[in-house]
C-alpha cells in the first residue's frame, strides 16, 4: 500500500530542509552567542565562561564542566508555554549537554563551568536540534576548545514516508502509521552520532535509512554554520 503522506504540506522534497538563517555574535554581553533559524523554528544560544563554578562541591578538579539550559519562551507557540523549568525542558537541556560534551574539551580549565543558555523564541518542531546548532556555533564563537562542530537535524516519518527536518504539521500527522520524530546530532568531522532520540514507530531498516538522510542534510547545515562563523563582521564584545 502506498504511503498516505506523499506530498509534503509545504511542498518540500522529502530530503529537503527548511530555509536556514544562522547568525553569530548577536548578544554583546556574552562570551559567545549565535542564533539558528529553520522555517518557523528559531533558537538563540548564549555562552558564558569558563568561570569559577559555585557552589564549590560541584567543581571538578580534573576538568571544567559544561552546563546547558534549554527553555521555550512563553510566546513561542500558538498557546502559551508556562515559563520556568519543566520536566521537558530539563530533559532537553540534559540531552543537549551530553551531545555537546562529546566535542568540547574543558580539561584546561579545572574547577570552572561553561554555561550554555538555549532559548526558543519561536517554535515549529525541531527546537532541540535548532538549539544544538546554535549552541555549537556559540561555543565556537566563545573560543571554547572543541574537537569538532555539532550539527543536528530532526528526521522522521509520516505514515510510510521518510522525511528530513520535520515541521509541526508533520509531527502531528495521525493517518496510517502516524508520525515518528527522530532528533539526531552528528559531529562534523568524525560523522559520529552524539544525540539520537526516537518518538514513534519505525523499523530498523527505515531507521538506518532515516539516519543516512539526516547525515546528508547535516552537511548542508554545517555549510550554513561555517558561513556564519567565517563572516562575523560587527564583532562586539563589550
Amino acid at each position, binding site marked *: 500500500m502506498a504511503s498516505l503522506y506523499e506530498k509534503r504540506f509545504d511542498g518540500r522534497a522529502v530530503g529537503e530542509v527548511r530555509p536556514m538563517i544562522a547568525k553569530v555574535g548577536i548578544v554583546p554581553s556574552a562570551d559567545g552567542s549565535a542564533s539558528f533559524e529553520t522555517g518557523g523554528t528559531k533558537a538563540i544560544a548564549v555562552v558564558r565562561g569558563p568561570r569559577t563554578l559555585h557552589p564549590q562541591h560541584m567543581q571538578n578538579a580534573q576538568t571544567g564542566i559544561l552546563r546547558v539550559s534549554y527553555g521555550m519562551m512563553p510566546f513561542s507557540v500558538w498557546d502559551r508555554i508556562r515559563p520556568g523549568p519543566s520536566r521537558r525542558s530539563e530533559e532537553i537541556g540534559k540531552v543537549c549537554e551530553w551531545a555537546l560534551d562529546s566535542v568540547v574539551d574543558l580539561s584546561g580549565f579545572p574547577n570552572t563551568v561553561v554555561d550554555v543558555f538555549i532559548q526558543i523564541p519561536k517554535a515549529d518542531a525541531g527546537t532541540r536540534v535548532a538549539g544544538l546548532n546554535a549552541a555549537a556555533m556559540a561555543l565556537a564563537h566563545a573560543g571554547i576548545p572543541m574537537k569538532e562542530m555539532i550539527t543536528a537535524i530532526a528526521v522522521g516519518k509520516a505514515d510510510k514516508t521518510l522525511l528530513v527536518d520535520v515541521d509541526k504539521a508533520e509531527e502531528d500527522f495521525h493517518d496510517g502509521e502516524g508520525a515518528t520524530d527522530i532528533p539526531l546530532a552528528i559531529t*562534523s568531522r568524525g560523522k559520529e552520532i552524539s544525540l539520537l532520540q526516537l518518538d514513534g514507530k519505525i523499523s530498523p531498516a527505515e531507521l538506518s535509512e532515516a539516519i543516512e538522510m539526516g547525515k546528508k542534510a547535516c552537511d548542508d547545515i554545517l555549510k550554513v554554520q561555517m558561513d556564519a562563523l567565517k563572516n562575523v563582521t560587527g564583532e562586539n*564584545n563589550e
Partner: protein
Amino acid sequence: MVNEKRQIVIPGETIVSGNEFLPGDGAYRDGTEVVAGRYGIANIFEKHVRVIPVSGAYYPRRGNTIIGTIVDITFNGWLIDFGGAQNAFLPVSEVPRYINKNEMREFLDFGESVIVKVWDVKSRGVDASMKMRGFGKIEGGMIVSVGPNTVPRIIGKEGSMVKLIKGATGCDVTVGQNGKVWISGKDTDGEVATRKIIEFITGNATIAGLTGKVENFIKELGLSVNKVEIVAEDTDVEEAN
C-alpha cells in the same frame, strides 16, 4: 610552500595536510592532517600551526598586563578578579614594599583595583606580580571595560593608538589585556573625552585604517592631534599576538 598564511577556521576543520607540520595552540593532529581545535585565525609559521582566538573570554598569558579588583585576602597575598576563568594570586613577596602581614588591608583592601603583570599561568590559576614600573594600586581616574578582543586596536601598532590618545587628551591610559582600560587625567573633562575616543575605537574595531578615523573623531571633539612622542611610556605595549 607558503611560509605564512591567515584564514578563519572553525573547530574540526582541516588547516593543513602533511606529517611535517606541528600542531600548536588550538590545533591537533588527526592522521596526516592538522585540525583546528578552536575557532580563530589559523597561523602557519614555517611548520608550526596555531589557531589565534578572535573572540570569546580572556585567556591570560605570561607577561600580560591586567587590571582587576581585590576579592579575597589570604595570609600571604591577595586574590584578584580580572574577568578570567580563575582569580589571580598576588603574593606579598611580589609587592615592591614592606607589608605588615597583620595589616594587609592597609595596602590593598577588598574592592580596590590594581594593575599587575601576569607572572605565571597554570591550569589552576594565575600568579601576578607588581614588581615593575607602571604596576600598582589604582587611585583616581576611571576604568572602562572594552572586552579583550578589541585591546590590540586600542594599543595600535607598537602603541601608536595609545600615544595618539595620550597626546590628544593629556590623560594617562593604561590598557589591560583582559579588556579593562584605566584612564587618569588632571580633570574629569579630559577623562571623559578619552573614554569617548576609546568607545569610538571599540565600536569600530573591525574597520581598516582606524587611525585616520580616530584622528578625525578627536578633531570633532574639539581637541588637537598632538604628534609629539610621549617620552614617559608606562603602558605595557604588546603586539596583537
